[in-house]
């Protein structure tokens, strides 16, 4: 539907039949699905605007119940189990995610709008791998070199975003459980469904009741989780704005906090870079997951001598991107997650034009229903433009140029954020020179958007603090 021209693809839809959607979902507290005490909200398929299910809106009383259940499970069961036994439950969860992978992938694409190719090949396998990796740590904590006697913290309150719903759940839940904590998790308002399926997976794994509790809801529910006095640890992934509020909310308490927030990553392309690969990396960096990626390479910094060639090649490549039905296996760019997010992307793109940058999108027919946005690049962007400073969280790339490596460093670091950066050059010593100078928690060289459970992820500056993944990710959940 998206592209006319040389590539005509027959539809290749993934079947929805693997998913068994219920009309309504309750909260998962103390090992059981229970009614919420407040009302409910609807979660929609952003590609069609069809209502998928009614989900309970957790309120303070629900959060209170969930924290109490988590505390009981912590005191009576989970903190007393030897690491070796905790590990077995987490391995079971990893295996069940692998077994139910296709079901989770389809559900994720339905609720989030991301292409099935991505949920199938990236989100779900990585989520399983994350549980597998941290399961292995559960009985090896003294080897992690974090302190002589690492101990769990207690109850972890976790609030996650909508861009990688199950994967972010895995990043939060797996290390928390491995370290001996119990959790109360609040999934994003627009993408609660895979978290609720995960609750079922916990049941299948015979995870002791109360070790994982899932309270669905909106911002107020999340604030209740973060602010609950029974919570010992707060982990949040989301916007810098909310991260700041959380940091203020927990000020003066003993709560340990990790925040994984926004980004405005620079992707640096030098004249000696393999340009064909670089263009693939630029596309992957900004259009992967509709650009709903905190570490997206949203600022392309190209060396002046190759800027024209890179942008020309990029435009050609963008013409082949297929925007449309997330469940179609040929789709590259799916739906924007919500009407609200679409409005934000539109506003910032309009600001880009108004401030004088040049906007370009390939010819692209968008579906009539649902929330879609064509892949877009802005050239002639200055560092002062809003589209060069603010996180758009959509498929919108700002192109800037530089002349020298020093200027590249200067411009790359000229941001309040510091989550990730990309470097494209054939010269190894330059990669490392730049990597040392990037004020960013992850630097990708001649690749972009790579994730692995063994590799720590997290930001400098206003992109948050703490690391998720790898040996370092354990520290967030340990008293060391």
């Amino acid at each position: 539907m998206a592209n006319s021209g040389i590539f005509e693809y027959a539809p290749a839809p993934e079947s929805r039949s693997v998913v068994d959607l219920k009309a309504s979902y309750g909260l998962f507290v103390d090992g059981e699905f229970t009614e919420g005490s407040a009302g409910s909200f609807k979660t929609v398929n952003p590609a069609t605007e069809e209502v998928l299910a009614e989900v309970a809106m957790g309120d303070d009383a629900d959060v209170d119940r969930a924290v109490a259940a988590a505390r009981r499970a912590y005191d009576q069961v989970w903190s007393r189990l030897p690491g070796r036994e905790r590990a077995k439950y987490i391995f079971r969860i990893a295996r069940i995610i692998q077994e139910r992978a296709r079901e989770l992938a389809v559900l994720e694409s339905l609720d989030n709008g991301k292409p099935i190719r991505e949920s199938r090949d990236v989100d779900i396998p990585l989520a399983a791998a994350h549980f597998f990796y941290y399961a292995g740590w559960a009985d090896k904590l003294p080897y992690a070199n974090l302190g002589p006697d690492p101990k769990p913290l207690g109850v972890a309150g976790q609030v996650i975003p909508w861009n990688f719903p199950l994967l972010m759940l895995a990043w939060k839940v797996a290390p928390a459980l491995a370290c001996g904590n119990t959790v109360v998790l609040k999934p994003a308002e627009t993408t609660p469904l895979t978290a609720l399926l995960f609750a079922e997976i916990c049941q299948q794994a015979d995870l002791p009741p109360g070790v994982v509790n899932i309270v669905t809801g909106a911002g107020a529910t999340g604030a209740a989780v973060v602010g609950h006095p029974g919570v010992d640890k707060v982990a949040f992934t989301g916007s810098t704005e909310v991260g700041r509020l959380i940091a203020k909310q927990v000020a003066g308490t003993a709560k340990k906090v990790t925040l994984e927030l926004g980004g405005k990553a620079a992707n640096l392309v030098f004249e000696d870079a393999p340009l064909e690969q670089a263009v693939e990396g630029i596309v992957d960096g900004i259009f992967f997951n509709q650009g709903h990626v905190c570490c997206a390479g949203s600022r392309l910094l190209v060396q002046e001598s190759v800027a024209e060639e890179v942008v020309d090649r990029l435009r050609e490549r963008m013409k082949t991107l297929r925007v449309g039905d997330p469940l179609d296996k040929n789709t590259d760019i799916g739906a924007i997650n919500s009407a609200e997010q679409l409005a934000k992307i539109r506003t910032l793109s309009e600001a880009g034009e108004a401030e004088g940058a040049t906007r370009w999108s390939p010819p692209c027919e968008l579906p009539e229903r649902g929330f879609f946005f064509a892949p877009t690049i802005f050239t002639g962007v200055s560092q002062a433009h809003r589209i060069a400073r603010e996180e758009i969280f959509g498929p919108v790339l700002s192109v800037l140029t530089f002349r020298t490596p020093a200027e590249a460093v200067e411009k790359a670091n000229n941001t309040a954020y510091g989550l990730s950066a990309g470097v494209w050059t054939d010269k190894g010593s330059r990669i490392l020179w730049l990597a040392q100078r990037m004020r960013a928690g992850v630097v990708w060289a001649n690749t972009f958007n790579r994730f692995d459970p063994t590799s720590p992820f997290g930001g400098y500056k206003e992109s948050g603090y703490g690391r998720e993944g790898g040996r370092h990710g354990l520290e967030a959940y340990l008293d060391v």
Partner: protein
Amino acid sequence: MSKTAAKNAAAAAEAPRSSVRKTYKLYIGGAFPRSESGRSYTVTAPGGEFIANAAQASRKDARDAVRAARSAQAGWAKATAYNRGQVLYRIAEMLEERRDQFAQQIVSVEGGASAAAYAQVDAAVDRWVWYAGWSDKLSQVLGSANSVAGPYWNISSPEPTGVVAVLAPATPTLLGLTSVIAPAIVGGNAVVAVAPDACAVPAVTLGEVMATSDLPGGVVNLLTGSTAELAPWLAAHLDVNALDLAGVEAGSELARELEVAAAENLKRVVRPGRDHDWNADPGLARVKPFLETKTVWHPVGI
């Protein structure tokens, strides 16, 4: 059916059924061959009752096993650590499912109470899980980024040493064998294991577990027979990189001779422990000796 016919049928159903017995063979290169020597030896229970005729591996079998291990090693080392971890975990799954079978075999060859045999199986399963979890953490615990005094990026990381010959202890049969094989393969080595004497019975069953766990053929090779006969060939084999002497008596003349033979190509040798407690937390004591540390330097500059 007449009354008589029904009675006969019922009687036949109650008659003891003759069992179909398993042939115990070697496990080399993912296949289960007999010993090329055509020899076998009798495995008996502690009380002397016949249990099985196990294949008695020869020098030639040992050499075939080393060749199989060498062929498999590079591919196994190249597999991602995640993948190796999944395979080791799969072995634990398969072992757990055969819990009863292993417990019975342990009772038959070692004697002792059924509860102790089950405890040994459980410990063996847990040990596979323990090592499965190590695969992608070894470089994080044993590697390092080194702050050299100069504009260089400098990283040290562990790599497998190659082919490891392990001499399993006679008892505990299953736990001993597991405790010497798993730590050697988790880091990417391939193994030739000697399962001595009565250990052959659970060893061959463990081979069946490994053959059905997506472990590439040749990564683990099992030789049943006599340690005294096979060990000198393995210790002297120039395509073996390391040697675990777990199954040899500490301080014995054999232990010394094997170490001397191993010195010819500077094999990494793990000496036998005195009264080693196979139930104790193994740590990384049997992992580290079979890993090399590689340090890479790279300049940093525009």
